[in-house]
């Protein structure tokens, strides 16, 4: 019997929503906007997270990155933090590491080929950097160990650099001028496109030792060091060892803070995910408030609707409607309104997410996780129930005589 009442209440709630089409839409607008905001935010952030995780997958879980680290205050005091080539040599003796790649992110430098001049980012590193940067060759080869040992004047370039220098389709064995040195192009990397609006094909990589030898003042050099471990179990031991060695080398007193960071790639991903997580959380809070406001809007309109339909409620009671039947009808009306709002909001939100990620070049595609969908529906339903119960109870408890007399 209750099931029957529920079905009938649903039917009459639907009829009522349809009868007040425009008002129903306005009523549920708060929910629509709230849910759309949740879904848009979540879908964009999830897309970002997805792609960041994909990016870091290339680093492997068994790698460690060592970078200089300086607080803003210390920088103001004129203290410089850097990882120097001697640190690199020091760390190459650490036990348990499989490979070690120095990465010198030299500032921009000019490349010249014929009459073409093009400025790009020059990185100095070794053959193991190929895995780090995930550079795959289209023509030629990547740097080799021998290139580094003998300080060969060779360079690996990206597609953008080739294009801007007007180099031939296959630029291998051409000579370009890097800064003041002539260098032979030994490889052209495959095109990667853009990530977060950043061109990923605009680079030139030369051997680490070559970089060191041509970089003017070696003392000013700040570099990053990437280690890979032979055995994942040694992660912590290696991290500790690296920290101890560097603190010693940098003359850091006990109690003072490190002027460098030792982070595993997992920690790096975690950091990113933490940031994204707190952004999601904050957005969730804002959105929660907007849903609350939407819910109050629904309650308001439902109360108006109860008052407006007092006479109808009286008629229904006179012809035999019981309290729970009236209650169910109004409760379902607000529940349905909220769920419909949730559905519309979901569609709009996903649309916004897709549009936003499409509008920003090479931004990762928006992804709507199932939990967000379920959560927004659950939340909508809850808003409908919580804010619908008071108007519905008010309607159900009306005195039939008073309700009939109401004009």
């Amino acid at each position, binding site marked *: 019997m209750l099931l029957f009442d529920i079905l009938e209440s649903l039917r009459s709630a639907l009829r009522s929503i349809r*009868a007040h089409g425009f008002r129903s839409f306005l009523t549920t607008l708060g929910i629509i906007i709230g849910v759309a905001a949740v879904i848009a935010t979540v879908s964009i952030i999830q897309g970002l997270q997805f792609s960041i995780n994909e990016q870091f997958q290339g680093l492997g879980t068994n790698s460690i990155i060592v970078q200089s680290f300086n607080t803003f205050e210390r920088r103001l005091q004129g203290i410089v933090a850097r990882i120097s080539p001697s640190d690199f040599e020091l760390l190459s003796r650490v036990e348990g590491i499989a490979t070690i790649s120095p990465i010198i992110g030299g500032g921009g430098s000019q490349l010249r080929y014929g009459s073409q001049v093009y400025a790009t980012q020059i990185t100095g590193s070794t053959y193991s950097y190929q895995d780090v940067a995930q550079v795959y060759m289209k023509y030629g080869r990547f740097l080799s160990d021998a290139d580094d040992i003998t300080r060969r004047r060779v360079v690996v370039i990206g597609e953008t650099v080739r294009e801007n220098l007007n180099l031939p389709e296959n630029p291998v064995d051409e000579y370009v001028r890097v800064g003041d040195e002539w260098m032979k192009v030994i490889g052209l990397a495959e095109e990667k496109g853009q990530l977060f609006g950043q061109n990923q094909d605009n680079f030139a990589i030369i051997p680490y030792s070559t970089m060191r030898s041509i970089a003017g003042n070696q003392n000013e050099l700040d570099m990053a060091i990437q280690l890979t471990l032979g055995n994942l179990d040694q992660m912590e031991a290696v991290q500790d060892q690296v920290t101890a060695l560097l603190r010693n080398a940098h003359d850091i007193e006990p109690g003072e803070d490190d002027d460098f960071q030792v982070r595993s790639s997992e920690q790096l991903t975690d950091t990113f995910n933490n940031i994204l997580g707190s952004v999601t959380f904050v957005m969730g809070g804002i959105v929660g408030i907007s849903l609350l406001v939407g819910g109050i809007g629904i309650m308001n309109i439902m109360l108006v609707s109860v008052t407006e339909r007092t006479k109808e409620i009286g008629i229904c009671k006179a012809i035999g409607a019981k309290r729970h039947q009236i209650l169910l009808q109004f409760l379902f009306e607000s529940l349905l309104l909220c769920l419909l709002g949730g559905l519309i909001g979901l569609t709009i939100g996903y649309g916004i997410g897709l549009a936003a990620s499409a509008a920003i070049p090479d931004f990762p595609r928006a992804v709507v996780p199932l939990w967000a969908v379920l959560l927004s529906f659950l939340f909508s339903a809850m808003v409908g129930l919580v804010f619908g119960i008071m108007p519905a109870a008010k309607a159900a408890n009306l005195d*039939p005589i008073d309700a009939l007399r109401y004009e």
Partner: protein
Amino acid sequence: MSLLRIENLSKEYQMGDNVLRALDGVNLGIERGDYVAITGTSGSGKSTMLNILGCLDRPTSGRYILNQKDVSQMDPDELAEIRNREIGFIFQSFNLLPRATALDNVVQPLIYQHLPRAERIRRATEALQHVGLGARLDHLPNQLSGGQRQRVAIARALVTKPSILLADEPTGNLDSRTTIEIMRLFDDLHAEHQTIIIVTHEAEIASHCHRIVRLEDGRVAEDRRNRELA
């Protein structure tokens, strides 16, 4: 055995410091198939009587036995059930649901009886045909004339096959020609042995009934057979 019996029934309202006694020890019995008019001037207790007879309100004291059931102390949901099954209301202002078609209006009380949809529609259609509106099932109330609306209301009252048809000034909002039509419909229903109680202050309407109960100051002042018809 009477269809309904009222014993020493009183209804009091608290009006500030004063107690207003709308009904004061009323005794009344109504038989199955009766055609009764309850009349009286305004303030005589007619409306209160109607509300209690229609189970919309409960008496302060006394008993109201309807179909051998004491309904005077039932709770609101039990009263709703009685209203649904035993009583068919007809109001002065029709009281149709404005956004529902004639058919949906008549179907409504059957929903509260949990009848399956097909059955509801069949019975509602029958009831509407019975009052001569078989061709207007899909009209909304505002697409119908006053007389037609009242016929829809009568169909809605009849569709549950109630023990009592309870009409409150049923022709108060109608012109004289429509009034005659509606009263003829009541006469016909009476001929089909439907128990009818009409609350009215119009002598003209009361004259259709076979029994006239006149209230005065909350008491039965007169209870007589209609001699013209007898």
